[in-house]
């Protein structure tokens, strides 16, 4: 496979896939090319992705997959178009602008692209998912929305703190897939005790996950008052998606023309034209009373400042956009509740899509140390026709069956549940065991 553009996204994809694929990376910057050659087990080529000879040199003729992941939308589209004419590889394109996504969605195969990921939209979607579940740090959906996976941090005042899993297991269709304690995975059994500051990964129906989230931290009920700081594309899309879900967010934008434009495009959002670091404005508008403050300004430092200011004024929870991947942990360290990096989000999406040849859907947990993936049970599967209690010991240790969907509805997996051929199973698996698990199922 060929990855064009070795920025944060390209390198991250290359790093995730270089073990299972032969990866060729193309970048226009010679320094970056030589860096990559030593850093990763990939072939790095210097050149322009839109240039025919570069792609031929990269071996486009026998490539299965081309991923265009530079920071420039037009370059990516031209690269994809060129790749499409030179071979029959599956072409994935990364774009920022939603208008290209709209074009691509409305005309199948437009620009010769087989799959398009839109950074802005993906980021906004992941922010909205995070907003929807208070205290969640990561949320993903499976089986067409019937199953949801979420990762939560357990607060000290939570009712499940210091309970065993058996005691805590009072939500109908919810499974505790894993607990992350001191950076280590603990695969829970009935006697495992959940402690404060643990991170729990749960899999279940969306309703149950929401209930669980509400019970987990009683202090934060479902969000109602949402403030978005910054009318960037991500801010706009976030507001739009929130409107679609019935929220009436407030959006703060500094530029008068942009504010007017946003106000026209977002009928249910209250758009305010002001500087988000103006403390007296924030106090007057009671931003401190907000349940969630999302900062989506065009600059990381401003995002951090705005988040911390909102937090200081009393905002329940802050979600901040971070353009620099390295800042994510730093942001969370100094007080931002969740930092979202668009590049990481899009790299995850592309990696996930690439792996879909085996699994239908993948969520990557804790820097790719484990995954939650969805598989269809085949006729020769070792799971088929047996109760889970009997089949689980055949799977690698640390594998948890989180949920089963049969004909689109959820079946809660318990020891006595019998898995049938054609069921979709959502599994929690350590990354190194993926191939073994896939083979068994």
């Amino acid at each position, binding site marked *: 496979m060929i990855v064009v553009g070795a920025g944060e996204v390209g390198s991250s994809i290359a790093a995730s896939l270089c073990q299972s694929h032969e990866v060729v990376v193309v970048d226009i910057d010679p320094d970056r090319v030589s860096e990559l050659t030593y850093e990763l087990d990939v072939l790095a080529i210097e050149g322009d992705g839109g240039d025919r000879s570069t792609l031929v040199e990269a071996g486009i003729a026998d490539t299965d997959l081309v991923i265009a992941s530079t920071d420039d939308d037009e370059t990516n589209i031209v690269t994809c178009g060129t790749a499409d004419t030179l071979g029959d590889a599956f072409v994935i394109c990364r774009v920022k602008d939603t208008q290209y996504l709209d074009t691509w969605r409305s005309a199948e195969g437009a620009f010769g692209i087989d799959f398009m990921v839109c950074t802005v939209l993906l980021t906004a979607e992941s922010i909205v998912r995070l907003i929807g579940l208070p205290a969640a740090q990561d949320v993903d959906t499976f089986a067409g929305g019937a199953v949801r996976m979420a990762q939560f941090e357990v607060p000290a005042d939570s009712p499940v703190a210091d309970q065993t899993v058996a005691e805590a297991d009072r939500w109908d269709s919810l499974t505790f897939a894993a607990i992350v304690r001191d950076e280590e995975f603990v695969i829970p059994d009935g006697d495992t005790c959940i402690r404060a500051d643990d991170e729990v990964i749960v899999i279940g129906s969306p309703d149950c996950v929401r209930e669980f989230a509400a019970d987990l931290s009683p202090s934060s009920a479902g969000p109602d008052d949402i403030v978005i700081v910054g009318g960037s594309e991500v801010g706009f899309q976030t507001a739009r998606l929130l409107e679609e879900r019935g929220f009436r967010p407030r959006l703060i934008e500094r530029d008068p023309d942009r504010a007017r434009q*946003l106000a026209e495009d977002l009928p249910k959002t*209250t758009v305010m034209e002001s500087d988000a670091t103006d403390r007296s404005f924030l106090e007057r508008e009671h931003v401190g009373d907000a349940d969630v403050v999302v900062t989506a300004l065009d600059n990381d430092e401003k995002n951090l400042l705005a988040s911390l200011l909102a937090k200081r004024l009393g905002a329940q929870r802050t979600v901040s956009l971070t353009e620099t991947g390295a800042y994510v942990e730093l942001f969370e360290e100094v007080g931002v509740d969740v930092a979202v990096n668009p590049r990481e989000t899009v790299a995850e999406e592309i990696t996930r899509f690439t792996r879909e040849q085996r699994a239908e859907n993948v969520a990557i947990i804790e820097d790719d140390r484990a995954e939650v993936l969805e598989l269809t049970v085949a006729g020769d599967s070792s799971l088929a026709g047996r109760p889970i209690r009997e089949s689980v010991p055949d799977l690698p240790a640390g594998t948890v069956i989180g949920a089963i969907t049969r004909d689109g509805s959820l079946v809660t997996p318990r020891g006595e549940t019998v898995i049938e051929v054609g069921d979709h199973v959502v599994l929690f698996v350590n990354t190194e065991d993926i191939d073994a698990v896939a083979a068994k199922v």
Partner: protein
Amino acid sequence: MSRSRLRVEWRASVSLVGTVLRYLSVPLAFPLAVALVYQRDVLVFVATIVLVVGLGFALEGLDPDPDLGPREGFLMVALTWLAVALVGTIPYLVAGDGTVAQPVNALFESMSGFTTTGATVMGDISFDTHSRAIMMWRQLTQWLGGMGIVVLAVAILPELSVGGAQLMDAEAPGPGIEKLTPRIAETARVLWLAYVGITALEVVLLYGLNVAGMAPNMTFYNAVAHGLTTMPTGGFSPEADSIGAFSAAVQWVVVPFMVVAGTNFALVWRAVNGSPGRLARDTEFRAYLGVMGVVTALLAGLLFTNGATGLDVGAFVPGDVEEALRHATFQVVSLVTTTGYATSDFAGWSEASKYVLLFTMFVGGSGGSTGGAVKIIRWVVVVKAIRRELFTTVHPEAVSPVRLAGRVVDERAIRGIFAFTLLYFVLFFVGTVFVVVDAGRTGYSIDVLEAMSATASTLGNVGPGFGSLGPFGSYLEFSPVSKLFMVFLMWVGRLEVLPVLVLFTGAYWRS
């Protein structure tokens, strides 16, 4: 100022006015036919047709190849309405019957007709004084004025196809026209076709009631006459007692037609053409029905408790549910849509009821309907814009565009609507003062409510007022000066004030 510095090609405008006048001979054939049937006033209409055609050709001669720009468009529209009203006096003057034989009265009657006001200066409304042909001409002027003479001209005159949208914009009631079809002439034709169709339906229904024995005095003549003045929200009637002369069944049948007449025609056209759901979703239509519903309920309550006794027409005792509801509904719908029909002499109702009715004179029909006054669409925008002002007082940084059915209303349009509404009320108050002062000068006794109703009624093209101007009275007693002033009010009211007032600014005539 030398002519070369005049930046308006007034000859082109006048020439096109001539074309419109020439075509006016076609509808004049209708009262001529009536005259032939009843063998009275035949020569009056022959003479009128000859005069109109001759005048039309004479004006067209001023500029054989008129080239219409945006400025000439304003002039042409304003002049057309003035010219048509002047020409409309010819049958009254030539026939020489009754009070309208006097030129100022004839002009008042003619302008009141074309602008669909429905205020009359006829001293005696009966076929003894006036021929049936003259009365039918009076009805027809309203029908022609309703959908708009210029709209009709755009529909049939190819030379108006380019500037047509702007012409219709200047003439059509409400802020901005909606193109139903890509070609403006086609849009104009569609509007007129719908207009003719609904008028015909009403005539059939009204005459049907007669055939069914539910309305003995609704003759075919009357059915046509009232059909012609309902759809344009006109209000003239050849019966001295207006709709009050007919049975309750007729009164109920007329109500829905007045409602349709006050609805945006583009909306009606779309609803008939397969998307009736649009009616229910339309913000303006809902506001329109809502206002009428609330005011009707209020008035019906007042009428139910007080009744309306001691009236010549439409008197009823307190406690009669059907009568209270029917008279309240009819009068409210009639005045909100600016039709001006009446089933009961509301000039004799209680003070409270009269003030409720005065309020309805300012509401007006929907934008793009034949109704006059301020119009629902403007009120909706004004209310929303005021609500925004209140909101931004609390949240000064908030940016909130005014939306109408999900679409953002342009700030310039909002400014225009505020300007119009304010100007409308300024004209109303200035007009009231003028009427009271002039009445004092001539020794005509009129109270404030009556003077207010006279101005509101003529400016809003409603028709009847209170006191001696009531639905079964007339404006005859006013001095000629007051009458000419009201002719002006009807004229600017029909063209929605701004397109006429722009002609009185220096900037319009210079570069």
